[in-house]
């Protein structure tokens, strides 16, 4: 190919006009039993991503039976009034569906991904497991043992130990201190009766929402088919329990967990915000500058400048109540305390050395210009919609989101940094060779030594 046009490699190529983002348009309707349906035709491939959202999560668990909501969801596929556990498994596997479940603090989400050729059978499957689970004691006992194995195995993973200890150290007596699947002592208290009771209270159509994205029929036909499928599922759901915001962290708290190994897992946690907080967008931008992106301050410092880690980041988990805002990394153990100091320093620097114009622009662009690729596949779309359903966000949330982001200025970012990033009230958890780093860590505050289960311990 001759006549090659010259380019100036010293310049970043100018972008074309920003493409019009075609966010999915929702079809909403309600079935006779009260079940809300959100249907979105999307993409050209012969597949469907479905998610059934129940607005009840792990915070509904009784404290001494933590793990109930997770176990209830897991037990759905372990036998129904019509079929044994083995038959349910065969049914699903022959359809070729991929079933997964999520129980977070605020909701239970049952997802089934399938090829559209099996549309009717796939939804029959969802309807049957949701409406008619058997909760056979034998199967529930097996599931409980599996959950106990899983909990035990988490003790082999430093990153899981660090995540769990962060919750406990940050949230004390609040339900957010408990992992969503419960711990050994609470899971042992769960039996088939516990699950049956939770199911009868929370697995009701009137507050549930079925999200269908992909190769789905038109609304009229769809609603007829869904009436036939889900019509037999009946009942009114109870109110979710009331939950207070967690109390403030009263001072800096340092936990060291002894675990020999070449790296230390570090968490530096603060009290974050609720999803409904008016500062949500400003906090998103602040977090993107602090640690939410590869080019964020924490990662550039710890990875690209120091080379102490494969990666370091920060995130915030905005729930119905105030969840955590925290930094996480795994570092070469010889730099453990240095890394903690740098993370604390970067959090403080968000206040003393506020976001530059370039940082602000990068964060805003990353949050807004990324929208087209975040709505590409059916499962991406259904995941976003699930978030809208759980937190009662308006259908046009993503249409208006870019304007909300653009409205945030440096003063807003500074303000939310001042509001949240007080490292004298941070929880610092380090899982690693504590005998080596404890003395130096004491320079940052009084260190409590804990074992891998979070119990007070000695080195």
């Amino acid at each position, binding site marked *: 190919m001759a006549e*090659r046009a010259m380019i100036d490699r010293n310049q970043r*190529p100018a972008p074309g006009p920003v493409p019009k983002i075609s966010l999915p348009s929702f079809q909403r309707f309600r079935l006779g039993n009260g079940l809300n349906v959100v249907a979105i035709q999307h993409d050209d491939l012969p597949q469907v991503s479905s998610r059934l959202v129940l607005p009840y999560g792990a915070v509904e668990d009784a404290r001494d039976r933590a793990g109930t909501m997770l176990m209830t969801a897991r037990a759905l596929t372990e036998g129904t009034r019509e079929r044994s556990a083995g038959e349910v498994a065969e049914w699903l*596997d022959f359809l070729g569906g991929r079933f997964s479940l999520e129980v977070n603090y605020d909701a239970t989400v049952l997802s089934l991904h399938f090829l559209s050729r099996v549309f009717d059978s796939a939804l029959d499957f969802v309807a049957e497991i949701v409406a008619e689970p058997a909760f056979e004691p034998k199967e529930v006992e097996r599931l409980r043992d599996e959950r106990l194995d899983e909990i035990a195995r988490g003790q082999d993973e430093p990153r899981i130990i660090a995540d769990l200890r962060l919750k406990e150290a940050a949230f004390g007596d609040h339900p957010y201190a408990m992992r969503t699947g419960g711990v*050994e002592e609470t899971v042992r208290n769960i039996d088939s009766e516990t699950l049956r009771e939770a199911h009868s209270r929370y697995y009701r159509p009137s507050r549930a929402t079925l999200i269908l994205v992909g190769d789905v029929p038109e609304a009229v036909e769809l609603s007829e088919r869904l009436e036939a499928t889900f019509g037999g599922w009946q009942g009114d759901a109870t109110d979710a329990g009331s939950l207070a915001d967690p109390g403030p962290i009263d001072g800096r708290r340092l936990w060291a967990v002894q675990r020999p190994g070449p790296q230390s897992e570090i968490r530096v946690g603060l009290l974050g915000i609720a999803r409904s907080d008016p500062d949500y967008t400003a906090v998103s931008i602040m977090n993107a500058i602090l640690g939410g992106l590869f080019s964020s301050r924490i990662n550039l410092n710890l990875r*690209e400048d120091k*080379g102490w880690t494969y990666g370091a980041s920060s995130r915030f988990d905005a729930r119905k109540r105030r969840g955590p805002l925290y930094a996480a990394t795994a570092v070469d153990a010889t730099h453990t305390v240095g890394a903690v100091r740098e993370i604390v320093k970067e959090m403080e620097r968000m206040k003393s050395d506020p976001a530059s114009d370039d940082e602000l622009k990068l964060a805003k662009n990353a949050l807004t210009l990324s929208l087209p*690729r975040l709505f590409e596949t059916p499962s991406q779309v259904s995941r976003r919609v699930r978030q809208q359903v759980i937190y009662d966000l308006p259908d046009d949330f993503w249409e208006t989101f870019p304007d909300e982001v653009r409205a945030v200025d440096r003063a807003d970012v500074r303000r939310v940094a001042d509001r949240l990033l007080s490292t004298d009230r941070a929880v610092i958890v380090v899982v690693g060779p504590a005998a080596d780093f404890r003395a130096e860590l004491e320079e940052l505050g009084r260190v409590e030594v804990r074992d891998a289960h979070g119990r007070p311990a000695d080195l």
Partner: protein
Amino acid sequence: METRAKGVVQFELKERILDNGLRVIVQEDDTTPVVSVHVMYHVGSKHEQPGRTGFAHLFEHLMFQGSEHVVDDGHFRYIQDAGGTLNGSTWFDRTNYFETLPANELELGLWLESDRMGFFESAITQEKLDNQRDVVKNERRQSYENRPYGLAVETVLRLAYPKGHPYRHPTIGFMEDLDSASLEEVREFFRTYYAPDNAVLVLVGDLEAERGFELADRYFGEIPPGPGSPQVKAPTVPPRAEVRDVIYDNVQFPRVYIFHHAPAFGQAGFEAADVLGYLLSEGKSSRLHRKLVYEKRLAQDVTAQVWPTEDCGLSFVVATARPGVAVETIESEILETLAEVSAGDLTEHEAEGSVNRALRELVKLIDGVQNRSDAIASAATFLERPEYVNELFSRVEAVTLESMVEVANEWLVPERRTTLYVLPEKSTGGGG
């Protein structure tokens, strides 16, 4: 009940080879205003010199540290500022670099990729090498050494392949080899392998093919071809006596790794081996899951899979023991199931279900511009046939009970097997 999915998925691929040998492939898809820019180089860990394991992957990291016209941290910054996402990965046989961008930023991706393909050497420094060496060593610590069972796969590779075999070491490499890598070797590696005629450029998304070719030529056309990158063929390991070993790790529960050599990607039997993995362990009704996890309650988990490699393939069956269960018991149960498969003791129903599950995952594999560009680039790199991506669906659909039995008889035999136990370093009782 419905039977198999019939929605056969086909993509129209357009291809042009630039004068310097760069193969450019475009697939137009305007369903979303995004574009994937994907460059795959035909070099991976199998091309590494003795004593330099991990080099291809370390090199991949350096490709994100700037080039002549792109400042040091520019790659990430430019892409994220455009709303895009990016990454790279290293495999036994190839290394890839890819970004997904809003469609109006296609040229940004081409500018960045062409600059590191054509203008990399002047930007590399000892300081960058040392920094990324530290990062990669931490990646090794985080993802392998400090992770339960993290050293099992590299141990299996060392046992399964003879000395000097290109697949004998893991892509992450070994610490002492990472320490030995020099700046001169970085330059040499770049000159040898990072040439347009040893790469493919795949563009998938909201663009017109002609414009894609024109821009590809504008950005990449002036880069001179390489010296002819020497290719490495990893030979199939001849049948031999089974190899076994035991390692100890900081874990509570024993785990068994049963490795077999397997057909390579694109080779006859690959899809049958792949679907057999679904039959054995994907879904609760799959053979091994049902027996080990559900009925006999011996294992916490079991997975069977085949890895898509360019040459002689790799497959694994891995299972973790429940508390108090001996790993030997699990191994013998797995071998019993493999023997059933080899004997043809399967039902048409389970064969059909496993095909259905494999098709579902296949659609996921070609869903989204980034996944699809990867699939196209792999077909072009390994098989020199990008259009192979359009045969994947029918090849999986064509897998039968008989073809799975056949592949089991050829490959899942003791002469191709390597077995590794990972046992707890100390007995902790396994309690929570």
